[in-house]
């Protein structure tokens, strides 16, 4: 077994041990399923969900809301960030309000957004966009501003215009920062979609979780948590894949943020 394979196998071995211990405790102490379900019961609920309760369809809706909102929020965050750095007056006027807006918990605003944008996927996309925007915006501003003086001198020596400095230096320089923000935002985006579905929806993984709780189907709720974490990891890895190709010059940062 190679060193890399051993590194990859270790967490799986630990997981198997934890699950085995969990199963033994639940069975040994006869803990009722509506308090803590056994892993075997969760696994059964997981496969039953996909076979009978259309988990895949609901997961696809939640994932679509998360990704669409993430893309919209990130694009808006990047646009506002560039605008604010290019026009410092805009930063002085707009930025305090953006920060003030950020301090309002999105969960508190979610019901209002449902009222405004309806019960369907539009309201969830708006909620996700709102939670994704801020981490991207903050990092875009930081990235555009943290440019080496040497590199700025290089551009000045060539009489580069403000737009040329932005295009040839500040924007590419900001990309590693942008991806740091995107990595946070992608995690937030799933949270945002679930919050939106909790507040008002008739489809999606969040909706299913609420239903499972009402029915005291705790094994089903656990199975849906597994669905969510698979979705989260898949989104995170997809983003990392894009990051490695776009920001190929920066050292890949593998750790989870948020």
């Amino acid at each position, binding site marked *: 077994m190679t060193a890399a394979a051993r590194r990859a196998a270790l967490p799986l071995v630990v997981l198997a041990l934890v699950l085995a211990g969990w199963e033994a405790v639940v069975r040994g102490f006869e803990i009722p399923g509506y308090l803590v379900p056994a892993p075997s019961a969760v696994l059964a609920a997981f496969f039953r969900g996909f076979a009978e309760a259309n988990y895949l369809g609901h997961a696809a809706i939640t994932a679509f809301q998360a990704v669409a909102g993430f893309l919209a929020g990130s694009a808006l965050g990047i646009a506002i960030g560039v605008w604010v750095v290019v026009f410092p007056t805009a930063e002085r006027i707009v930025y305090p309000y953006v920060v003030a807006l950020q301090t309002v918990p999105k969960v508190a605003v979610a019901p209002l957004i449902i009222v405004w944008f309806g019960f369907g996927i539009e309201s969830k996309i708006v909620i996700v966009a709102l939670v994704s925007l801020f981490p991207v915006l903050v990092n875009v501003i930081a990235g555009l501003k943290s440019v*080496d003086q*040497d*590199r700025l*001198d*290089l*551009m*000045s*020596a*060539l*009489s*580069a215009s403000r737009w*040329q400095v932005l295009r*040839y*230096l500040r924007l*590419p320089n900001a*990309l590693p920062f942008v991806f740091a923000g995107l990595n946070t935002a992608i995690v937030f985006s799933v949270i945002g979609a679930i919050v939106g579905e909790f507040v008002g929806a008739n489809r999606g993984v969040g909706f299913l979780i609420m239903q499972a709780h009402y029915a005291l189907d705790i094994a089903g709720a656990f199975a849906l948590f597994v669905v969510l974490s698979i979705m989260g990891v898949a989104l995170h890895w997809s983003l990392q894949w894009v990051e490695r190709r776009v920001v*190929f*010059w*920066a050292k890949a940062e593998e750790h989870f943020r948020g």
Partner: protein
Amino acid sequence: MPEGLPAGLAALSIRGLGMVFERGAASVEALAAVDLEVADREFVAIVGPSGCGKSTLLKLVAGLRRPTRGEIALYGRPVRGPRSDVGIVFQSPVLLPWRTVLDNVLLPADVLRLPRAEYRDRAAALLELVGLAGFERHYPQELSGGMQQRAAIARALVHDAPLLLMDEPFGALDAMTREQMNLELQRIWAAQRKTVMFITHSIPEAVFLADRVVVMSARPGRVLEVIDNPMPRLRTLDDTLKPEFGELVRRVRLLLGGHGVAL
């Protein structure tokens, strides 16, 4: 530009140049009344103790900073800001990691909106001149420090500016690589017929490369003396072992107060 120069007109003319940095209530005088003339196609090296304002002088000539007093003229025209008839090599290579070596060399062409197709060939030829043929598609972080600095030199040459400003470009390199780079720079200078203002900490490097060595005082910097090196081109590393070379190095060292101590 150099071809059209009236006889006797200096490539670079510095008169009464002074620079004072305001740091809160305190002010630091970096340069006090520097006078210097550099002829077209001349190689001038500037040596001086740390903090004597050598780098400040170069930034002023490049138009990156405004002097407190005095005048700088390039090819008869006063310097009011950055100009495209100057190429600069900084202390560190300052290559952009998201551009290939070739695209880094082409950066001045992009910024100055010169035709890329035409300058591509020129950039490739310059990369060959600095010994980087075959590395066009590589990224800077795949190159050694010496190779990165070669790429930076090619970039400074790409828009064919007649004046090359070099700010301790080989300071970060090991001694062997540095000797090699000195030989290469002399070759490039001879091939491209540029006027060079070269700032360095190393006295032997200054003497080896320059037609004239400008010795500066400690802060506030001014010109102590200008020493000619008449040794014929192209110089070889063996020339550094000749008594006349040693004598020039000794004179510069005495001016800097080194009294024969190796620097």
